[in-house]
């Protein structure tokens, strides 16, 4: 909805305002000692688009997320997000700008409840003032109640079991439920860009399918969330991505629609002998 309006808006000269790209990555570079994890990688992402980021193990996919979210400072290159230069910004600033992520190896606080874990992701929208938290307990309580209602509704769109157990510790839950909680944590703050790092890891084919459907349904409701998804399961990439970028040894070796890259000779060579080539 939003995008249609933006696309039709006119500027002062009466010319249509072209919807700018949400994310523009230019010449990104990152080395670890002698390992060039990213070497002059550029790609961009339109608003509401889903980009599949693929490549063999160790090709720099996770590193690109880590640089993008400010965990690593890039050695070179630029990251433009939503019209602002966020290169080298802290992870906190990147989150506040509207980028939320999941991690390849699940990073939940296992001792804490489902609700607590989802609320970690809601940091930007909650009042963290000392006075508010310690002394205005009535107002605080109202904020908890509305946040709980919202988190429960979000969790319910992935699994009724989660919604029914908001105050149970996460550590007791199976892998698939943990993945869902991690995605709820990323979605609760209504980010502009969601980064998914191998959401299917440790899950069956059907579970992955279900999870992607649920994510797409929430995306529909939140209106035009953009996604970058790293995934080994090619069926998933084929189904959800508008556009793909292929990395190999830290370099971009191909870009285009799934059909384009699937028939690309360089891509086939890169995957040859690797378990993902199925």
């Amino acid at each position, binding site marked *: 909805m939003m995008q249609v309006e933006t696309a039709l808006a006119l500027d002062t000269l009466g010319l249509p305002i072209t919807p700018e790209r949400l994310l523009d990555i230019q010449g990104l570079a990152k080395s670890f000692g002698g390992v060039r994890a990213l070497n002059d990688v550029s790609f961009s992402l339109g608003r509401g688009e889903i980009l599949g980021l693929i490549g063999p193990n160790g090709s720099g996919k996770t590193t690109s997320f880590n640089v993008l*979210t*400010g*965990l690593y400072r890039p050695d070179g290159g630029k990251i433009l997000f939503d019209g602002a230069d966020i290169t080298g910004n*802290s*992870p*906190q600033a*990147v*989150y*506040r700008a509207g980028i*939320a*992520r999941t*991690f390849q190896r699940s*990073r*939940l*606080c*296992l*001792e*804490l*409840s489902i609700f*607590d874990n989802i*609320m*970690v*992701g809601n*940091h*930007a929208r*909650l*009042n*963290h003032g*000392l006075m508010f*938290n*310690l002394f205005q*307990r009535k107002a*605080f*309580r109202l904020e*908890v*109640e509305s946040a709980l209602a919202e988190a429960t509704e979000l969790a319910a769109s992935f699994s009724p079991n989660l919604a029914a157990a908001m*105050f*149970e*510790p996460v550590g007791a839950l199976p892998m698939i439920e943990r993945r869902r909680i991690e995605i709820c*944590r990323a979605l609760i*703050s209504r980010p502009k860009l969601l980064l998914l790092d191998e959401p299917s890891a440790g899950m069956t084919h059907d579970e992955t399918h279900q999870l992607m459907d649920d994510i797409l349904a929430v995306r529909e409701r939140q209106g035009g969330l953009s996604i970058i998804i790293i995934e080994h399961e090619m069926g998933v990439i084929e189904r959800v991505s508008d556009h793909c970028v292929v990395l190999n040894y830290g370099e971009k070796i191909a870009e285009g629609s799934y059909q384009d890259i699937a028939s690309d000779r360089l891509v086939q060579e890169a995957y040859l002998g690797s378990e993902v080539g199925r």
Partner: protein
Amino acid sequence: MNQLFSRMPPLAAAALAALLAFVFAVVFMEQESDVAVISLLALGAVAAWGAGRVGLSRRVSAAAATRPGAVAALGGAVALGLLAVFAEDHFPLLMLSTVMLYATVALGLNVQFGYTGVVNFAGAAFFGIGAYTAAELVGRTALPPILVLPLGGLIAAVVGLVLVVPVVRTRGHYAAVVTIAFSVLFKTFLEVNDTLGGPQGLSVAPLSLFGWSFGEGPEILGISASFYLNYALAALAVLALAFVMVRRLERSWIGLSLDAVRLDETASACYGIGIRRSKILAFVVGNLVIGTAGALYGSMLGYIAPTSFTFSDSLILVAIVLLGGMGSPWGTVFAAAIVVILPEKLQAIQEYRFLLFSVVVMAILLFRPEGLLPRAVRRYMPAPKEVAR
């Protein structure tokens, strides 16, 4: 039996448990011989086990979840009851006050490493800073205790800022080493500092409030109470305030951020939580609580010396937190009672208490890392009644 307790209203179960704890504490405090003390300990352990078997413990936990305020009030009532019973006796009052102040210190440490993972092996040093601040302030000024106590906390928190850079910037073991060094340095500093009394220490004038000196026992209902009753009541007030504030902190978005920082700094940073900010907040708030308790402790003892605030004492404070259960306020109070009272009652173990505590801490870490009264899942508000079922 099982039926009886599992149907009991949670609050009634909590009241019953409070009554049993009160009676047990009164009888226990009155014992003199090692044999009687050990027998009572055994009885207490069996009773605690039995309470678990017949479902009483679960009802009490349910009460703590659904009616936290009422359960806290019961705890306060037990403490007041004990103070009333021993109103005329110096020694039991001194011991109870020490329990309450150590519990307060351990609550402060809990904010630091129970929630946030910021290790502090200098608890006794910050406690001492509060005590020495009180000694100087009460001796030289006529400030009312209501100001002396928080000033003790404030000075402890400010001195603690010296350590903020190493404590915040690096991980666990480094903060441990730095705080251990601070603890040792603090004692040496006191010993060579003549204005602070050197190795002999200094005397602390009694607190006074509106012309009423804490050094004189009040007359209540025809009973001439020990002057320690003043301090015991003040200690209870300080503990209650610290307890309420620490609980509120835990049950808030700030408490959630502190937990997240302890459990996963990377994920926390990616969700906007300021890592340094959280650690500094926890360290400062913890030292504030510790120093406040120290100020009252110093005035209560009337005489303080460097030997009261050693690294070994810091270890005992850490042991209280581990024994009670990291992040568990009720566990902290319970563990403080055990750690303070047991060596006083069992003269036989007094000499070996450090050895004994080391063994206890190792046993806890190995066999029950969640502590004696494990922390419950965070509820931001009283849980709905269904939870009690």
